[in-house]
């Protein structure tokens, strides 16, 4: 019955409570959206494996490395597999259709990226056919691509008309894996370069090195870079995580601002709820005095006021969470394709939202509690709200 009293009190001013709940819900949605954007930004880092190293040109990622390095890197102690990739670019359908298109080594692709789950027969077919490609399931869904379909592309970094036949589709092992990428045979690219742009052949973008012991990553990296020191194409080897972090370092100020914004929103929710609770508690000054006269203790009054605050806060939080997923999905649809390959409301965002709304409920009740307990019973009984 006391819980009933708490709930009924919360809903006594229906319009005010409803507006507060809607306010909290909107703030939770905004908080969730910002957190999701931040999470999406860090998705590459989340998906990084500890046993993968990236070897790139030391000056910049955009410069290529000789394919000939492969054998030398493979002989480095502690190295298990060496794979390589080349950014292709190109235009598919029109310039607004952005997704990662890369040349790869089909024989080692799944060795270094076991998180790509694909049909074995399809993958064997992909390996056999030089102008074939493998695409992520999300990409296939987006462009309605099926096995056997042909993807026509206009080259930009590598000029000319390019045709790729879809021979395999990979599914991500979990939500952190990007399923919007397309890979094709590096040999196909290299062959065209030999014909059309002699001098650009025999080059790759970066090596992905799978090592036996993640604890040896620093030593292996140093060893690899030492191999090519003072060569025409010196290397910079780092863990996949460091490599991904380097990518987003340029936008760190923006991410920090987004992070800051998300917590400003938490502050706004607290003010909204705090205002409601202060009004409610003031109106009930006499009722709290009556409860205390009847023998309800100060801890009970504390639980009673904070319970109401937490109840309203959690209702708003729950409504916000309920609407957050469709809202985030809608936001993703409204954005240009490929901006965020992985754009999901993370479990941590859901937990953080609920924890924050709970804490806000507690914090917003502190001042009303302090006021209710500070008021003498005799003064409370005389209060006219």
């Amino acid at each position, binding site marked *: 019955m006391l819980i009933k009293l708490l709930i009924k009190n919360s809903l006594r001013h229906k319009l005010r409570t409803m507006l507060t709940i809607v306010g909290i819900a909107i703030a939770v949605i905004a908080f969730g959206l910002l957190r999701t954007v931040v999470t999406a930004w860090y998705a590459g880092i989340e998906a990084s494996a500890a046993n993968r190293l990236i070897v790139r040109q030391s000056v910049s990622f955009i410069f290529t490395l000789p394919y000939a390095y492969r054998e030398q890197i493979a002989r480095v102690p502690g190295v298990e597999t060496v794979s390589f990739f080349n950014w292709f670019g190109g235009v598919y359908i029109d310039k607004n259709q952005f997704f990662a298109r890369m040349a790869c080594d089909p024989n080692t692709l799944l060795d270094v990226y076991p998180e790509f789950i694909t049909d074995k027969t399809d993958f064997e077919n992909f390996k056999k056919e030089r102008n074939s490609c493998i695409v992520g399931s999300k990409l296939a869904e987006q462009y309605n691509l099926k096995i056997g379909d042909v993807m026509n592309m206009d080259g930009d970094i590598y000029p000319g008309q390019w045709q790729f036949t879809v021979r395999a589709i990979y599914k991500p092992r979990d939500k952190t894996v990007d399923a919007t990428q397309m890979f094709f045979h590096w040999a196909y690219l290299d062959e065209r370069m030999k014909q059309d742009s002699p001098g650009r052949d025999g080059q790759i973008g970066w090596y992905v090195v799978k090592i036996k012991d993640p604890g040896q990553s620093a030593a292996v990296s140093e060893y690899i870079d030492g191999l090519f020191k003072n060569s025409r194409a010196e290397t910079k080897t780092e863990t996949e995580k460091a490599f991904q972090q380097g990518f987003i370092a340029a936008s760190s100020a923006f991410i920090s601002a987004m992070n800051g914004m998300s917590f400003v929103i938490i502050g706004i929710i607290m003010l909204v709820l705090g205002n409601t609770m202060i009004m409610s508690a003031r109106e009930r000054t006499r009722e709290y005095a009556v409860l205390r006269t009847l023998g309800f203790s100060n801890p009970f009054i504390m639980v009673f006021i904070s319970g109401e605050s937490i109840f309203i806060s959690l209702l708003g939080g729950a409504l916000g969470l309920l609407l957050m997923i469709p809202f985030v999905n809608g936001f993703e649809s409204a954005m240009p394709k490929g901006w965020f390959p992985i754009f999901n409301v993370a479990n941590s965002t859901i937990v953080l939202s609920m924890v924050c709304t709970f804490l806000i409920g507690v914090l917003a009740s502190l001042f009303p509690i302090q006021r209710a307990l500070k008021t003498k019973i005799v003064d409370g*009984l005389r209060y006219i709200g």
Partner: protein
Amino acid sequence: MPNIVEIQSVSKSYKRDSLTIPVLQNIDLNIPEGEFLALMGPSGSGKSTLLNLIAGIDRPSAGSVIVGGINVGTLNETALAAWRSSHVGFIFQFYNLMPVLTAFENVELPLHLTKLSKKERNDHVRKVLDIVGLGDRMDHYPNQLSGGQQQRVAIARAIASDPTIIVADEPTGDLDKTSAGEIMTLLSRLNSELGKTIVMVTHDPSAAERAHTQRHLDKGALA
């Protein structure tokens, strides 16, 4: 009859900014068990303050208030709250019912502070609502009841936990003459049939006449 309330040399003053306002001065009063006492006096004479001291919702500035053998002024807030819940039934002028609870739930409210089971609480509430003549209105909310009925619910709430003493602050002050008469009859019955000690503050001479004893306060002193 032994004294249920013993007030010895009690003074009470309030501070407003730098001013100290004396309200009660050197009060001595003994109330025997089973007494029905009416405290009368003009506004500002200190009768409600004295009632609040007896009920343990305020503390004396000097002297002692002993109710049922307990020196109320020495109890800390938590102990005092527990003491009030089991020893004092309070009836207010403006009823002070919880508007979101039914008559039944309002009466049940103080019983949540006891160890009674749900069934025992239920039986208790029905019994006291029958005593005050509202057995058929237990599902009504306060705004669905008249003033007199609301005060009867408040009386039922005051007696629900079988307190040692009932204190009533102007219980008829907000009621018409008929309702006031009904309330006074009910209080008289509680005193005569159930043996409840009642201390009532009133301005109304006809209400005071129903009490066994009348004491008058004037300028903070008992006449």
